[in-house]
Structures are given as C-alpha cells and as structure tokens.
C-alpha cells in the first residue's frame, strides 16, 4: 500500500508532526512518499476546465502540479498535512489541491444527496487530513474536519478521517496519527 503525504507548511515547523505521521504509516505497512509542496513549482489553477474538455485528465499547465496529481491518483492513501489556516488549508496545500480536479470526471453525479462529480479512475485513494494549530481551537478544528470530509465527497474517496493537533503539548500526536490511519483501514 502506498501513501502520499502532502506537506503544506511554509517552513520547517511541521517537521515533528510529519515525522510522527510517516512513522505511523510505516508501522501500518505503507510505503510513503512525502511531497514538500513549498519546494515544488505549482502554479495556481487557471479555472479554464482545460483538464476536462481540452486535455482530459491532465492540467494544461506543465509544472510539478501534474506529477503531484498523478501520484495522488496512484496512491491508496492521500494525506493532507497543513497548518490550520482560518479553519482551512494553507495556501501551499491548496495550490496543489486545486490542481487535483483533472483526476475527477466533469460529469455530474448525485452523492449523498448533493451534486458532485463522477470518478475518472476506478480506484481512488482514501483521504486523511491532519491539521496543526499552535493551541487548541475548537471552532477552527470543526471547520477543518468538515472541509476534509467534504473534499472526500468531491474526490469520491472511499474512506476519510481528519484530526487537528495542537503544538502546545496538549495533543498526543502519535495516538492521533495512528487513529487516523486506523479509521481509513479496511
């Protein structure tokens, strides 16, 4: 099983949490690739829908965004790791996530009573979100969890789980990381 971990931090501040997560993934038997998004050239999505109607399945921008989207499709587990930013994802993470829409079909589908898209690929990775905050913030945490769950509907992820850890020493990061991996295990 392969896991793709996206490091959405602007600097090194996420290293500790990332190490704990990658360790837990290794223990659960995953071969893990970590993509440090700040070191990649990923232009923002142009909003042109070329990835659906001009070059179906691939973004029209030829940069690292394509390789990250490809790696995401080929993984069994996709993990977003990000500073919780106004309850959501950092701009570093989001620039990659916006470039994932080539991986779904333009065609609409009804999913859990809402409109979403059909799958492009038969197999889709499960999705976990691990948000990091300086100290606990229940409101931001609730938004973050909703956001990850809703992303999973858009990507048609078979399983999903999200958690937020605080860096003030109040969170048992290892237990939380293990919990996320167990939540998406078959």
């Amino acid at each position, binding site marked *: 099983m392969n896991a793709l971990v996206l490091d959405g931090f602007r600097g090194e501040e996420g290293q500790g949490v990332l190490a704990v997560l990658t360790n837990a993934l290794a223990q659960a038997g995953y071969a893990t690739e970590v993509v440090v998004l700040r070191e990649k050239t990923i232009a923002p999505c142009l909003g042109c829908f070329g990835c659906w109607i001009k070059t179906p399945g691939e973004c029209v921008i030829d940069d690292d965004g394509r390789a990250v989207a490809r790696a995401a499709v080929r993984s069994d587990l996709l993990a977003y790791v990000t500073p919780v*930013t106004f309850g959501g994802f950092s701009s570093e993470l989001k*620039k990659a996530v*916006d470039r994932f829409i080539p991986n779904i079909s333009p*065609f609409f589908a*009804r999913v859990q009573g809402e*409109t979403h898209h059909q799958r*492009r690929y038969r197999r889709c990775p499960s999705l976990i979100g691990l948000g990091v905050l300086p100290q606990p913030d229940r*409101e931001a945490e609730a*938004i973050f969890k909703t956001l990850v769950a809703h992303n999973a509907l858009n990507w048609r992820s078979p399983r999903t789980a999200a958690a937020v850890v605080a860096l003030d020493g109040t969170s048992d990061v290892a237990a939380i990381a293990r919990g996320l991996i167990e939540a998406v295990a078959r």
Partner: protein
Amino acid sequence: MTEKKALLLVGSPRGIEQSTSGRLGGRLLDALKERGFETDKLHVHAVVRSPTETERALAAVAWADLVVLSLPLYVDSFPAPVIALFERIAEQRVGAGRTRILLIIQCGFPESEQNATALAIAECFAAEVGWRWLGGLALGGVETYGGSAHEVLDLIGKALAEGRPAPDLAANKAMPAWLYRIGGNIMWRREAKKNGVARRLRAKPYAD
C-alpha cells in the same frame, strides 16, 4: 458611518472582466458607487504573483473600510491565491479593528449550501484579523441565474450604504438539481466536441 471606501477583491483566476465573480462583485461595487462610496478593485491572482504587487494590495486593503471578496468556490474553500493574500493580511493584521468584510461566493454545483465551509473560513479569518464580518451571499449553479443575482446585489448595496447589516443570503435557482446535472453533462460533451476530444472525456492518463 464616517468612511465610505470599498475595495473589491476578485478571487477568480479568470480575471475581473471574464469571471462570474468579477461581474457579480462589480455590480455590487456599482451599487455602492451610486451611493457615494469611493471604490477600487483588485484581481487577487495577479497581485499575489509578485511581492511588490502584494505590498500594493495590502496598502489597498488598509485604505478600505469595506472589503468585498467575490470568489468562486474551489474544492470547498477559497482558490489558493486568495488564501495566500489572506495569510499576508493576517500576519500584518492589516485593517484590524476597523475593516468590514462581505463575501460573494458562488459555485458550480446547484446547491448553494455547498459554499457553507468557505463562508465559515471567511468568518474565521475575520475573527482572527479583527475585521467585522458582514456575512455573505452564497449562490449555487450561477449559470442559470440571469438577472436575479444582480437584483439581490442592489439590495445589499443599499443596505450597506445605509449602514444596515447586509442580509445573509443563500439563493437557489429555480431549476431542480437533477435537471441541472443533465444539462451540465450535455454542456461538457458539447465543449469537448468543439475541442475534438469528445471521445476522450473519460481518458485516464494517470492509470497505472
């Protein structure tokens, strides 16, 4: 209200003129201008590309006492460049304690409720930087709206100019979601055909 300075931030990569976000936001800005506001507008994707432009954008944000952010929903939240600008605003706490923010958000799916997470993120941003949250107009399936969104924006402009809070609005269009989905699927096929890729719409370039 002493100041009447409104800044429109257009958060669509398609630009101020071409995007639905730009057109809706521009309409509200016109409604405000008619009522004595000084106005300015910025295309967020253009300004975050360079540090000098970003500095100019932060100065424009500091100038405004009302920020209208008009943007498309991108994967349940803001397009990445909008988050990037907001990270900078939050770092410097630009306009803390005096700026008001109103959101106009619209999405491709016909359910306006799908904008809820993005609205919550905007409200969380406002709380973090110390801006006053005025609420937002959330629209779904905008392509089928015609003029009705514009009328709503005129009402919001009037309320803001009179110092009343803008209403929180979620507007759903008349078309049922299932019909919207069928129409949308026909539209994608037609667009792909124009590009000569109708038969490749379900291509799987990354399949292993």
